[in-house]
């Protein structure tokens, strides 16, 4: 019994991190059809900047703000000056965003060096508590809480606010949105910045348990892709469900079938694809 509770909590904490990253990716892709290979770069940059701020000030909140801000700025620069002219052009986006991946990762390597690091856990959340007869780290519970809060926040944004409605309309039918007279450039820029923000938050929140090291950007991207395929592209609900599935299946898969650990992330994806090519909540393109 304790085993199942523990593993479920583990899986959930990993899921919440995945959700932050996948949600950003799916929003950007769903609305603007942009495949941003540099999505992991937001995480990378944010985590390193957060690390520096944390070491300098000791404040987790300040690090959270600084890291996210850095990610947002990067996102705005990428979108306004570079990506904007390649609307609906997949291949050009691939080369462009890949170029950014190389630039950001090498700059981070140059500035922060190649040593793998972790962000220190915010004070007050270090340590572990007893749950169902087993020890569980407090910080992970915080991650679950934060993840759920963000999920609710995003849901409110999408379902209850005017901007959310605009985004939903845009995901459904971009032409209509253009025709309705709303400044679509602003919406695009804002959504891209939001996606970057979420990934940046992921960098600081995930920093204490995943860490930051050269190569984590591609790693994060792959995870985001898997979640988004399973959940369905363009759907926040899909990103949430996809993250839950991936986090839990990965966790239980590794615990129950450790010899197949390498496949626990890709196997569910292959199965879902075989049944529903657009993911659980996704919609096939017109």
């Amino acid at each position, binding site marked *: 019994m304790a085993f199942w509770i523990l593993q479920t909590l583990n899986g959930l904490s*990993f899921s919440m991190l995945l959700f932050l990253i996948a949600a950003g990716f799916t929003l950007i892709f769903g609305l603007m059809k942009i495949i941003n290979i540099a999505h992991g770069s937001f995480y990378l940059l944010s985590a390193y900047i957060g690390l520096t701020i944390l070491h300098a000030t000791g404040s987790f909140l300040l690090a959270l703000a600084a890291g996210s801000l850095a990610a947002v700025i990067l996102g705005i620069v990428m979108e306004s000056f570079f990506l904007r002219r390649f609307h609906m052009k997949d291949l050009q986006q691939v080369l462009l965003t890949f170029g950014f991946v190389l630039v950001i990762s090498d700059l981070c390597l140059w500035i922060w060096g*190649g040593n793998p690091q*972790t962000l220190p856990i915010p004070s007050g959340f270090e340590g*572990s508590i007893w749950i169902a007869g087993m020890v569980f780290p407090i910080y992970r519970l915080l991650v679950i809480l934060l993840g759920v809060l963000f999920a609710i926040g995003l849901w409110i944004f999408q379902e209850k606010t005017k901007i959310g409605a605009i985004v939903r309309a845009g995901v459904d039918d971009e032409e209509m949105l253009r025709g309705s007279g709303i400044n679509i450039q602003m919406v695009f820029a804002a959504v891209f910045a939001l996606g970057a923000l979420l990934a940046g938050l992921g960098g600081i929140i995930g920093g204490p*348990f995943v860490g930051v090291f*050269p190569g984590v950007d591609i790693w994060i991207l792959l995870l985001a892709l898997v979640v988004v395929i399973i959940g369905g592209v363009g759907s926040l609900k899909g990103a949430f469900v996809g993250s839950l599935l991936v986090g839990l299946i990965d966790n239980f898969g590794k*615990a129950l079938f450790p010899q197949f650990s390498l496949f626990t992330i890709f196997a569910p994806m292959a199965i879902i694809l075989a049944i529903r090519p657009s993911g659980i909540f996704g919609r096939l393109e017109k």
Partner: protein
Amino acid sequence: MKKLIYVALGGIFLSLFAFEGPMPAKAAEPIKIGFLAPYVGVYTKLGTDMRDGFKLYLDEIKNKAAGREILFLDEDTEAKPEVGTTKTRKLVEKDNVSVLAGIVHSGVAYAVRDYVTEKKVPLVICNAGAAKLTTDERSPYVFRVSFANGQQDLAAGWYGYAKLGIKKAIVMAPDYSAGHEKADGFMKTFKFMGGQVGEEIYPPLETPDYAPYLAKLVNYVGKVDRVWAFFAGSDAIRFVTQYQQYGLKDKLKLWTIGDTVDETFLPSQKDAALGIENYLHYAFTLDTPENKRFIKAYEKKYNYDPGQFSEQGYVGAKTIVKAIEMVKGKIEDKDAFLKALRSVKFEAPRGPFKFDDYQNVIENVYMRRVEKKDGKYLNVVFDNVPDVSQFWMPKK
């Protein structure tokens, strides 16, 4: 007109490096050493440390050996075998190096082994631990100054049983060649002594979350004596911190190879690493005159502490230079140079250094424990097993 400009640019671009023929080496010409290491990606730190250590020794001899100047040529392997082979070809065929050194990643080492043997260029491996490189796949041109995967672990299997009282253990390492080879080394001597292995667990490389595996380990508390583990890089940081977070640190002690609690990770692992007993062929805290001198020189030049890979690079350089001196600078006499390399012996920062018959290093293995001194986390030596080769077996 624009077309013509593009075409002309293309021509200039190509000519940037076309028409550069090979230059034959003559005596009294500088000796070129080609160095291969990754400077991007997850292994970057190992590469830069290794290179810094290597260059420190060259600095100490003022880049001159047996009257000839030494030229250091550096290439980035990206820890990718196909890039490694291309760069090796560049060093050998375009730059005409007389000897190669470095290599962090075993895949790269395997990939260039045939090539250096065919081209008769000696290679002094400063890290890549793939066991077969100095056994089944050995070559007269391949030397290794670092360790073979499993080498230190042979000593640890015996030591754990005989001195630490470990009778039953769980084995954990990442699921790739180095992980398996090191685990095999440990289990070989451990089982030979009568030890029992409860379970072998191999999480994938770069596992973000060891929680699923750690939760299983909780069931072994009280049933096994220790968990033997090997992890490196960000895996090591995550494993050790998560090990403590899941309450295992004090209930199920670790016996691990030094990579897992390397000084570079201790600032991130902090108290989670405190007290962990581990072993390695080198220790920063090793109290010998040679090690103290090495550390002082390294810190003076680079402003940071040397580690295992720095020392390996340093020893690699010294080995090559000592051999050059033995053949009085005539490195072009391949057979003599190889013979000289094989016979190199000296006192390294890690202790006595020499090669075995298969051109792999024989070295001491130090038993260490993570302690905190003056606010700094360090691995402090408390024992050692001398003269461990890749074939070491205990006397029962």
